């Protein structure tokens, strides 16, 4: 229990240190990943991280052969990792430029070849007398808990550089992501911008390697921006939210691994990110699945209500014959269930649903004789719904070809869409139709 409190209050120096390093990495991954996601190049991060492995192995072997014992220096190993990533991405670019195979296939090939080569190098290193202690596998799986103050300092510097570059060149990178051809036509150096973005990916890979390990780096490039997309429709906001979510998943991962002994931070960070992703997918304000369902549900309900009221009104119009619907007491006239079923293509169940909802709203009442009647409020709503619907149909018939952009609007908000004099014109048209046909006219007929 005391341990629990200690961790949560960050009293532990080591926890603070690890948290600081992974937070910054998480933010970097989220921000750079947002650009890559929008460029549809999330796989590039995958290649960058896997291709780092042979770089690490080679760096170790070269340093050991130059001066034995120096191979473990993290600076050289990380430089090797960066060089490996860059080489991998360069190869993928070369293959793509031939246009002989598709991008995803090219990236997949490079990824596997480099990773395989890396594993071979690693087994060579393991067989060396000094190799088994070299701890190169830490770069594969990460070892957040063992980050030193020096590690964190270099992570911090590198992260701040990455974040500043993203902030300064945001406009240019955004243009590149949205419309590369247009950017090039305007004279922007798109190849250099692309190089910049790729360098940022390599930088994130190298930053993340000591903490979460190269296998999981890619998760921090992909998961936070994908989750962030559910919360916003603006690129700027997306980038920030993505950075925050990346940092948040890092924080959760580090704290959880400090609480539970022997729990690897890198893995928990990714799991936390996945949790955030699932929550975002369900509840994200922009395109969250739950809101989508609810929206669908309420739209269906609203349409059902309007259709029901309009159907009732049309039935009532028929039953009063030539009398003016304004003067009759419409609330007195019964409507049977069968009449409603005949008027529309509703199933029995659907009719029951809309009727129950209408009774709850108080627009329709079920009387003792088994028939339905509109309430006073229901009559008002039904009259309005019918009028709007007919005006709208007339509008579509008579005017819509002049302004199709308006056609997607709902019939009942239509007074807000159309200018008052147009509504007046439509009402005149509706009146003419009525006079011509005696019966209030259904424009389809």
């Amino acid at each position: 229990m005391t341990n629990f409190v200690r961790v949560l209050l960050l009293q532990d120096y080591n926890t603070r240190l690890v948290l600081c390093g992974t937070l910054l990495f998480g933010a970097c991954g989220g921000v750079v990943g947002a650009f890559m996601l929008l460029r549809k190049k999330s796989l590039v991060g995958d290649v960058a991280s896997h291709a780092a492995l042979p770089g690490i192995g080679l760096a170790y072997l070269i340093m050991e052969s130059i001066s034995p014992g120096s191979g473990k220096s993290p600076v050289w190993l990380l430089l090797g990792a960066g060089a490996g990533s860059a080489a991998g991405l360069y190869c993928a670019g070369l293959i793509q430029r031939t246009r002989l195979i598709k991008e995803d296939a090219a990236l997949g090939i490079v990824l596997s070849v480099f990773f395989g080569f890396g594993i071979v190098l690693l087994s060579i290193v393991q067989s060396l007398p000094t190799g088994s202690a070299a701890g190169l596998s830490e770069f594969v799986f990460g070892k957040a808990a063992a980050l030193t103050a020096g590690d964190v300092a270099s992570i911090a510097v590198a992260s701040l550089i990455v974040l500043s570059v993203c902030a300064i060149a945001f406009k240019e990178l955004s243009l590149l992501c949205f419309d590369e051809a247009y950017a090039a036509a305007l004279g922007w150096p798109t190849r250099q911008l692309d190089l910049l973005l790729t360098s940022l990916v390599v930088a994130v890979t190298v930053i993340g390697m000591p903490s979460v390990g190269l296998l999981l780096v890619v998760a921090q490039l992909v998961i936070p921006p994908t989750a962030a997309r559910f919360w916003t429709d603006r690129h700027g906001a997306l980038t920030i939210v993505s950075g925050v979510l990346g940092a948040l998943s890092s924080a959760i991962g580090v704290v959880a691994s400090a609480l539970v002994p022997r729990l690897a931070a890198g893995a928990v960070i990714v799991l936390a990110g996945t949790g955030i992703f699932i929550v975002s997918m369900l509840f994200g304000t922009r395109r969250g699945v739950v809101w989508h369902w609810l929206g669908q549900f309420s739209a269906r309900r609203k349409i059902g209500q309007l259709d029901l009221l309009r159907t009732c009104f049309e039935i009532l119009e028929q039953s009063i014959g030539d009398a003016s619907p304004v003067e009759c007491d419409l609330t007195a006239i019964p409507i049977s269930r069968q009449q409603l079923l005949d008027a529309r293509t509703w199933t029995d169940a659907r009719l029951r649903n809309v009727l129950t909802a209408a009774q709850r709203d108080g627009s329709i009442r079920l009387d003792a004789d088994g028939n339905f009647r509109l309430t006073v409020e229901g009559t008002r709503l039904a009259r309005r719904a019918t009028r709007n619907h007919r005006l709208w149909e007339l509008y579509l018939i008579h005017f819509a070809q002049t302004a199709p952009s308006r056609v997607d609007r709902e019939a009942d908000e239509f007074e807000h869409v159309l200018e008052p004099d147009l509504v007046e014109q439509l009402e005149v048209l509706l009146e003419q139709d009525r006079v011509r046909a005696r019966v209030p006219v259904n424009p389809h007929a």
Partner: protein
Amino acid sequence: MSNHPESSPLSIHDMTVAYQRRRVLWDVDYAAPAGKLTAIVGPNGAGKSTLIKAVLQLIPTASGDVAFFGRPYREQSGRIGYVPQRTSVDWDFPIDALGVVTMGLYRKIGWFRPVTRKYRQQALAALERVGLAEFASRQISQLSGGQQQRVFLARALVQDADLYLMDEPFAGVDAATERAIVELLRELRSAGKTALVVHHDLQTVAEYFDEVLLLNNRLIASGPVEQVFTTENLRRTYGGKLALLDLVGSRMSTK
């Protein structure tokens, strides 16, 4: 670059473009007349889009050279407005209509500098010209195809370029958008601008455009519509598909 007339917004000398070994454009020699609306017409695969992309150096050319207002492209890119095909971008991108239009101003704003109010207002004015001011803050995926096309036009308009290159702006748009685009093209012409437009609908060429460039891997003919847009030239451009051509031909002769 000596023999490129400065008066022509776009002059092309002996340009050849090839994908792998297949030549898409052969020895194209053309000078666009200034202040005119020119339609680029030809069958599918004739290299119409390729022509535009090649002069903008978006794809490599095998040979030939191109000048804009008598100077190389690099020096003139600020005077050229490009409207790519609508389908060339992902409309799910998290940006609103105003944001897309603002991209046309990025060159003017310059490297690393933020988009200020002044520029946003210019972009809004361009959106207003294409009749989309009220959609400025709509996410672009929620616009109809025609509206998306007009956003692209606004993005080119806001550049205040002298030459506009448009790749199929009329493809798949509604009647209102088509009218808006035609209106806009005429406005541009009366402001002394030049536009080269890849166009598919042979029926409207004579109505919308002053000049025509008939293309089918080679330049078949170019010049004023009334001289060049003839049944004979169309036959040479389109080969066998005659039913349509005769229809157009008879329309032209009754005009």
